[in-house]
């Protein structure tokens, strides 16, 4: 299977005043195309730092991170912006939709930065909102949507530029159990369609949906196991 993420001896050290804090202390792992991965760990385990690096929001202090064969260390900030735009689809815990901006415009946004022509943008955004079940509500503002609906808009937005990885940071953290279920079903479906989905979570229930669970503690991977998802739960 094609390797999409290659990580070797990844370290991240934060300079906090005079004190150095090692958030990641030598992580090695590969993620293949089409995998459905959960990254687990308590807070302070380094999983958020790891996710920021995976999403090209941050750079490793040492070590290698290759995304689809591109060594992230070779690129400057503007090029990283382009890589984020084209190769990473973010879904956040707090949805992070742009306020006072319609669902449709929110979904179009990555395509605006990807310089996709306006008519194409609109068409694709409509398709994606249809796909996550919000075809009717494209004109609603974020404050007119429920948490589950907001997260579905965010997922549609993550998919716009057909990125090779979808990176979700606690995507169900702010949702009730029913919406959580719906969102996880969407992620499962996306994975069945061939998307590589990485979910950062501290909830074992959520990790159970995935095929592979990677556990962090103190900046190291302490467990990396395959999982038989129980999609019929509840």
């Amino acid at each position, binding site marked *: 299977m094609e390797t999409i993420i290659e990580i070797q001896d990844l370290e991240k050290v934060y300079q906090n005043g005079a004190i150095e804090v090692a958030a990641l202390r030598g992580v090695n792992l590969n993620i293949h195309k089409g995998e459905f991965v959960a990254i687990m760990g308590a807070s302070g385990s380094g999983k958020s730092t790891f996710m*920021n690096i995976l*999403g090209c*929001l*941050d750079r490793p202090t040492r070590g290698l991170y290759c995304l689809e064969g591109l060594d992230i260390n070779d690129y400057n*900030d*503007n090029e990283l*912006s*382009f890589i*984020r*735009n*084209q190769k990473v689809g*973010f879904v*956040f815990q707090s949805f*992070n*939709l*742009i*306020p*006072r*901006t319609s669902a449709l415009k929110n979904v179009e*946004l*990555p395509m*605006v*930065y*990807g*310089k996709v*022509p*306006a008519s194409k943008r609109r068409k694709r955004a409509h398709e994606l909102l249809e796909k996550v079940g919000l075809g009717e509500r494209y004109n609603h503002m974020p404050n007119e949507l429920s948490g589950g609906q907001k997260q579905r808009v965010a997922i549609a*937005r993550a998919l716009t*530029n057909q990125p090779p990885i979808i990176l979700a940071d606690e995507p169900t953290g702010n949702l009730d159990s029913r919406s959580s279920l719906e969102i996880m079903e969407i992620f499962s479906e996306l994975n069945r369609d061939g998307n590589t989905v990485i979910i950062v979570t501290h909830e074992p229930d959520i990790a159970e949906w995935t095929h592979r669970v990677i556990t962090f503690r103190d900046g190291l991977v302490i467990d990396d196991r395959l999982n038989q998802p129980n999609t019929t739960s509840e």
Partner: protein
Amino acid sequence: MLFFENVKLALVAIKSNKMRSFLTMLGIIIGVSSVIAITTIGNGANSVVSKEFDAFGKNNANIYPNSSEEDTSGVPSQFTLSDINALKERFGDELRYVALYMNGSSEIKIGRMTGQFNISGIADNYMRITGVDLLYGREFTTNDVENRRDYIMIPESAAKKFFGRDDVTGQALSININNKLREMTVIGVYRPRESIFSRLTSNTSYTVYVPYTLWEDRPASVLDIYINEGYDVQKVLDKIKSYLALIHKLAPGYYVSNSVESQQATMSQILGILSASIGAIAAISLLVGGIGIMNIMLVSVTERTREIGIRKSLGAKTGDILVQFLIEAMLVSALGGFLGAALGIGAASVGLSMAKVKVSIDPTVVLLAVGFSALVGMFFGLYPARKAAKLDPIEALRYE
């Protein structure tokens, strides 16, 4: 493409904070409107003044003795008819009109009507040269002037008041000229030129014209002169002055001149300096307006830190964020500039139309105001926009 997206974004941001945007614009609006009002009024005043001067005739000038070199004997320096004849002979080509500057005033009583006449002595062709409308009759001929005919031209307002009708040519009236009561015949009725100054003077006295020769042998201290078209006014004046000094056996430079041309230049220079300096003071409020924009943009950047983080995570480059905030700042101030220009032109129009002056609006002024305001917005928006663009996406996403 991205430009229009940014304009739309900026409009949304402005609309969602209407009051705040308006207050931010207010500084620019006040600055631009005052600059424009002042320059428009200044231009209006300048054009009025130059029209007044044009009406006198740009080639009009006076020659008189230099007061600082006042001759004690007095008389030899003053002008007489023989000077006029000498000048006509010597400068026949250059001179269009030359007369002794004579004036006086006289009480007038016809029937039960009384009034005051301000009497001006003029030579032939005066009305044609100065472009005054002669409604009835004719003006003085060379013959009338040389033969000291007791002819008079009066304004139509005086004709109406004293005779109850317009065409009063051939009517007689008596006035006092040079302490001599003269029986005058009206040979012309004229309509005075509309002028801003005429509105300032009272209507109880009337300007009437008589041949300047009616003052007989009284000398004059001022010569009234019109130079023909095609001659350099100043050069001809200089020649006339030295010639006059020569025939009066006085030092060259004894006579000085004052031409409408030079007065007009001085006047418009003064007006220009005046409106430029007031305009410069008003421009300071533009600076204040710009600082207001900077302030509010800094607030906006802080408020929207999270939005900036989201945009960056979705692939916005540093430059994209910079341009977004810069365009917002420019749009706010350009909008303010436009409103300010409208307000300034409005205020100037009201002011000028109250003074009954035709308002001329220069469309480039509006364009300049909007453009300059946008520039102010760009200058003062740059720092906040850079601050926004340089935000660390991780920090920005964490911002609550």
